[in-house]
């Protein structure tokens, strides 16, 4: 009798903690919040906070908290943060994931813990194909897609002698292979540089000597700022137009300024898109943070609302992971991209646009949509994903 009571008393606190854990939704957001690449990570943090405040601090009707973790753009730091979020914070979702290198490093760990992982930027090809998982969703795009759009555009406009460059890491190789999938002209040179390199004068001199018709690059964040500035500094811009992906965005443009004027960048989202939800987001973001959000922010904003829709669908039962995954697959939330759906591999089906840098009336540089390159575009790897076959 006595033993039974003791047992019940011992179990009581266990029930208590379980109940309180289910009362609150915890989202872990891992991105780069310090150093030169924070220019991409900070808008992710701000957009997540904005989304949560627009939802009245609640996710799916439950009180919610976002735990932020700075990966310093290092895969091992990302792993540490994920470990902490899984074990100590006991988060229900992990999102963020600016860099493909960080995402690939934490992937097995998070998926293995059966925690839903939603990348708000990185989309390495492995995860769209063979390594896809029910627990993983990519909110942004598969890495190859924006370059595919740019390659498609260049060939359509008879630019057939292009010099290509990217940093030597997972996403860099994805971007170039995506570009080559649609671009069938001559590759004047293909160069991979050290990740995080500051100075590109040696490479820029090589470009000038090769005399291509155009240059295509992928240099995200701080690397992009350096490259775009130095490309203009060496006087190449007026002779050889610069086409890029994830290199010119409202964040980096603040530093690139006139050096980026006239450059082209392909993306699935830009702040000037004529989509009601997107304009609502841009207006609310600009009002709260006083700067124009880049695509990294817009996607994170979508990710928080996607999580909200999933928790709503299961009526706050966070242990019903199957239910939440099924709800996420429906993409039943208002997206800044207007029409938005998930493919069978949990990667988006969305449009891709060409943007160009123009000077606005107030003398600032801004990205302006020129045309739609792809409509409802799917990535090239979905057929390799086991989830597609079933």
């Amino acid at each position, binding site marked *: 009798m006595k033993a039974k009571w003791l047992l019940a008393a011992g179990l009581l606190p266990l029930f208590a903690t379980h109940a309180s854990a289910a009362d609150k939704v915890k989202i872990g957001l891992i991105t780069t919040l*310090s150093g030169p690449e924070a220019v991409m990570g900070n808008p992710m943090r701000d957009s997540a906070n904005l989304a949560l405040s627009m939802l009245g601090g609640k996710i799916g009707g439950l009180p919610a908290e976002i735990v932020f973790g700075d990966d310093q753009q290092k895969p091992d730091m990302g792993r540490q943060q994920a470990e902490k979020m899984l074990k100590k914070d006991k988060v229900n979702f992990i999102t963020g994931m600016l860099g493909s290198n960080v995402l690939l490093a934490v992937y097995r760990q998070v998926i293995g813990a059966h925690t839903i992982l939603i990348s708000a930027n990185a989309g390495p090809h492995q995860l769209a194909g063979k390594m896809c998982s029910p627990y993983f969703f990519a909110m942004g795009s598969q890495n190859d897609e924006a370059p595919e759009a740019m390659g498609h555009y260049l060939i359509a406009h008879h630019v057939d002698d292009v010099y290509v460059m990217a940093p030597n890491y997972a996403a860099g*190789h994805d971007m170039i292979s995506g570009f080559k999938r649609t671009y069938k002209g001559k590759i004047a040179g293909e160069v*991979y540089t*050290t990740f995080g390199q500051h100075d590109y004068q040696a490479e820029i001199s090589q470009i*000038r000597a090769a005399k291509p018709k155009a240059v295509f690059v992928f240099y995200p964040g701080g690397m992009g700022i*350096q490259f775009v500035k130095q490309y203009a*500094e*060496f*006087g190449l811009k007026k002779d050889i137009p610069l086409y890029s992906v994830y290199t010119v965005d409202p964040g980096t443009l603040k530093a690139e300024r006139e050096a980026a004027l006239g450059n082209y960048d392909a993306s699935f989202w830009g702040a000037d898109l004529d989509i009601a939800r997107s304009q609502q987001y841009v207006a609310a973001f600009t009002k709260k943070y006083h700067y124009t959000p880049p695509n990294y922010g817009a996607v994170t904003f979508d990710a928080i609302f996607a999580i909200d829709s999933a928790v709503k669908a299961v009526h706050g039962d966070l242990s019903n992971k199957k239910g939440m995954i099924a709800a996420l697959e429906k993409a039943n939330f208002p997206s800044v991209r207007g029409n938005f759906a998930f493919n069978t591999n949990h990667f988006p089906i969305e449009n891709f646009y060409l943007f160009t840098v123009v000077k606005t009336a107030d003398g600032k540089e801004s990205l302006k949509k020129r045309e739609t390159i792809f409509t409802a575009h799917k990535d090239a790897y979905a057929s390799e994903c086991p989830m597609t076959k079933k």
Partner: protein
Amino acid sequence: MLLLLVQAFNGLQFGVMLFLMAAGLTLVFGIMNVVNLAHGSLYMVGAYVCAETYVATHSFLLAIPAGLLAALATGVIIEIGIFRALYTRDHLDQVLATFGLTLMFNDLVRIIWGSDAIYATVPKFLAGQVVIIPGAPYPAYRLAIIVVGLAVAALLYLIIARTRYGMIIRAGASNRVMAGALGANIVVLYTVVFALGALLAGLAGLMAGPIFTVASGMGDSILILAFVVIVIGGIGSIRGAFIAALAVGFIDTMGRAYLRPLFGLFLPSTAADNAGPAVASMLIYIVMAAVLFFRPQGLFPPRMR
């Protein structure tokens, strides 16, 4: 062939920047026998104060003395406040203390200026390009870096080889105890040498600002390169630092430009794409290892008696 000349020019610009960093480091190490890992922090202080002053006042000419003064003042303060207690300690204590300083300075700039990087622009009067090699206009700002760097190298040579104080510095580098016994005021000499090194690091930092990213921890990567330079050149030797800095600048630039095409000759293209940048970033360390193996004292060590 012209391209090779252009790349040599690029290498010269990088080398000159490295020299400014390495000169201070080699003086401090050679004369005071102190391993100063905080040297990169002085570079960062120069870059930050210059960039911030430039952004605030829109005057680069005002930002230059501000950056120099800040680096100089920081140098003198840490020499008097911290380094004087370290001279008699062994190298491990010095490494620990100065590494701690680096961490402190990195966080200090985060507290003062935030964790976002600052992107200063090139001043208007140096914004264009200059045609030196036909068909390859060179940015005027980078040309200015080369000119300033070479002028500073010449000035340093004159001070060290031709003036009385330079003689004392050389004496200190060759034999500190003897120099002190002969009446040189070692305490003042140390402060002056350290201040000079801080000034040079600050100069390198403020010139790097407009073309590189001004961010917390920016001094760490160039500090490593500066150590490579002084190890190759011979610790304590300004002449060695100069030649080694230019050599490292050339080797790094040429590696980045030509290693990938070279590997492409005998490797499949994907392997060459991966190995090219990887080996290019290792190249100078390979050279350093070779120098250490065949000539551990460096290429131009100061004469010791």
